């Protein structure tokens, strides 16, 4: 039966509009405002015009625009903002969403297709939103014999671990969620969680396909973690630090990929394997084991796993940028904030508005973020490329590659790093003049 659109009536249309406005206002005043208040109580509010703002005064920003910018600025510099929005989860998720769209269009161009086209008018830009809505609205089916608590919690753990990994990546000078002194060790520890989560979820689903897929993922991740760690030892030897921010700062004049191309290649191959992307997507090999360890996930549980996978992709690409491509370092291309706006204010016709607290972000941070985004996007594109070119590899060839070739190459890379150090070409501070 086809659905026929009901006849349009203006009265009904206005009624529905007012209905929507009523509900939005109601929900905002009952839920939104209290939430904003609770948030304002927990952040350190700035001093405006010699007066320390209280949450009640802060709420008057709508009436007094001169308070708006300082409040936003103080919000930006809270830990909360870092975790939720900028270098943390929000930024990573935005990157992941962009990656999914770019991947689909990019792959479509390779394969002589058009890719997503209709959803969102402009080249299907809202396709991801549509897919997400579909996944949310779908029923979640749990296998009858599954170990339910573990099965439920596995996707959440996966996303959480991926987000924790993403939070370790320094995006701009000073802009990182968590900056431990042993940053690289924490990265290795976080990566080490993924096989455990995969095996837990695959075992708890109690299905043959997930079991085989989980075992394959375990083999793959564990055998590729060793070359992954070994390939980064060269950088640790040369920089003498495990802190990711310091590693970025050590690359102000040259990138480590110049001295350690072998390490970069080994690391790149291992991240493709860790991400389970083609040609190393054996744990999800469709024609052999249905969908591998993802077989029994449905609805938003599957969506969460996909989100986690793309967060992981962003985090690995960011790690590659940070370690080998110089992170945020790059020539200053971002224009400086116009000084006369700070001193004289903005003149619009007869009105001159003085806005205190500008600029929101300093030039270094914006420029660093720009370079980081450009480099990471480039790395992600190269990670996406093999999907259009290669078929899937077989498990024995995969393990052979991991254990024989990559570990050997990683050791060669370490010897090169040691050679550079002892020959006196490079020291902990950089090139020895």
């Amino acid at each position, binding site marked *: 039966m086809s659905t026929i659109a009901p006849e349009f009536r203006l009265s009904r249309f206005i009624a529905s509009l007012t209905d929507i406005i009523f509900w939005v206002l109601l929900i905002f005043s009952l839920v939104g405002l209290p939430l904003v208040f609770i948030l304002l109580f927990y952040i350190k509010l700035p001093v405006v015009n010699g007066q320390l703002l209280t949450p009640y005064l802060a709420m008057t920003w709508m009436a007094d625009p001169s308070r708006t910018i300082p409040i936003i600025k103080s919000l930006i510099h809270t830990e909360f903002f870092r975790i939720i929005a900028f270098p943390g989860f929000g930024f990573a998720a935005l990157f992941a969403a962009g990656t999914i769209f770019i991947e689909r269009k990019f*792959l479509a161009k*390779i*394969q*002589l*297709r058009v890719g997503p086209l209709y959803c969102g008018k402009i080249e299907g830009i809202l396709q991801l939103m549509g897919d997400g809505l579909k996944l949310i609205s779908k029923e979640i089916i749990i296998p009858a014999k599954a170990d339910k608590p573990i099965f439920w919690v596995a996707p959440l753990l996966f996303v959480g671990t991926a987000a924790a990994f993403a939070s370790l990546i320094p995006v701009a000078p000073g802009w990182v969620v968590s900056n431990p002194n042993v940053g690289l060790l924490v990265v290795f520890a976080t990566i080490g969680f993924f096989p455990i989560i995969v095996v837990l979820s695959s075992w708890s689903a109690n299905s*043959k396909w997930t079991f*085989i897929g989980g075992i394959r993922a375990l083999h793959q991740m564990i055998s590729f973690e060793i070359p992954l760690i070994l390939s980064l030892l060269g950088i640790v030897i040369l920089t003498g630090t495990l802190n990711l921010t310091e590693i970025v700062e050590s690359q102000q004049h040259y990138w480590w990929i110049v001295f350690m191309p072998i390490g970069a290649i080994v690391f790149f191959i291992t991240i493709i394997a860790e991400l389970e992307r*083609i*040609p190393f*997507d*054996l744990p999800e*090999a*469709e*024609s*052999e*084991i*249905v969908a591998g360890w993802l077989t029994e996930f449905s609805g938003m549980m599957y969506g969460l796993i996909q989100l986690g996978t793309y967060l992981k992709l962003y985090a690995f690409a960011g790690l590659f940028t940070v370690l080998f491509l110089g992170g945020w370092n790059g020539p200053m291309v971002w224009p400086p904030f116009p000084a006369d706006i700070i001193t004289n204010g903005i003149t619009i016709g007869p009105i001159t508005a003085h806005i205190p607290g500008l600029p929101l972000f300093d030039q270094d941070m914006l420029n660093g973020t720009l370079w980081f985004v450009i480099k990471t996007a480039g790395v992600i594109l190269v990670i996406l490329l093999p*999907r*259009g*070119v*290669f*078929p*899937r*590899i*077989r*498990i*024995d*060839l995969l393990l052979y590659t991991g254990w024989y070739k990559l570990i050997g190459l990683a050791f060669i890379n370490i010897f090169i790093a040691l050679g550079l150090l002892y020959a006196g070409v490079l020291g902990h501070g950089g090139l020895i003049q």
Partner: protein
Amino acid sequence: MTTQLPPGIQLETVDDRIMTLNVGPQHPGSGHMRLIIKVDGDYIVSCDPDPGYVHRGEEKMAEYRNYIQNIPHLERPVIHDSCNILYPYCLAVEDLLGIEVPERAKYIRVIASELNRCIYTLYWLAIYGIFLGHSTMFMWPAGDRELFIDLLEAMSGARVTHAYFVPGGVRNDLPANFEERCLRQVNYFEKRIKEYQDIFYQNPVLRQRTEGTGILSRMDAIRLGTTGSVLRASGVDFDLRKKEPYDVYENLDFETQVLKEGDSYARSLIPYLEMFESCRIIKDALKKMPKSGSVRTKLKPNPKGGNDESYRRVESGRGSLGFHVISNNRPEPYRVKISVGSFRNLICIPYLLKGEKLGNMPAVYWSLNYWPVEADR
């Protein structure tokens, strides 16, 4: 075990190491069929193919329809190769009814049959690509099929189920300017499929994966009764277009492609190489075809065959495809027996998969050029 089992069910002595996998029918890596695979770790211990999910009784249906009415439903088992599956039927019925086919119709049949063989091969190749995880190899052949589908649409009016061949010739003549258009599309097609070499057949990962897997030796291939590309990949020079030439294949210039390796790489390469031969045949046939003339010998209404039988076979995309038609002085055939290459190639699966790794299953299975719907008939 003290548990009471229902009557009629016996416990097998199952080694704990061995896991049984039901690959299909609801599995992305099977066709409309099931492979019962037992694995020990990553190695396949035994494989038991279980076809029959799409059995439609085509042979029985043919006994209730007259010779012309049989045409549309007999092409259903393999709609992507519908010209080739109707070819032996038409040849057999022409024998029974004693009809002569006009010369131009014979050439048109050859052209349509080769075009359809390419369409089928590309479809098969697309699935082979996606079975190995190569999504570009799925999209490219699926898109390039359109070239020849368009040509066959211009010839017959239908894109997939053409019903173009009839006893006595073909249904209708070629459209205007067909020769030029066909030549242009074939030339472009040849240029296009050369690129498959770069992205697929010379791909190091693919060669690592498929070379030396599922080796079928020359003697085994003959003894198991395989046919078509599987037989030729094992080093047996057997092509019905050369050995038992039907219609005008003896006048045309082409070669049989034979490889000695007998592994799944060779089995997947043979149909690809044959597409070039098909293009050669089409170009040659376009040159040698009479430019005008009748394309169909008119039949009497509701023709009756004598008390006779006929068996004719052709080389289809999946090997020898034969129709045994028996008539008994009635408008309907008394019996139609279809012998298809798919079913004969399926017999190899248990031999080839035994001892292979699970990851080789799709590579070996689909390299057998097996079409489940055709095998079930």
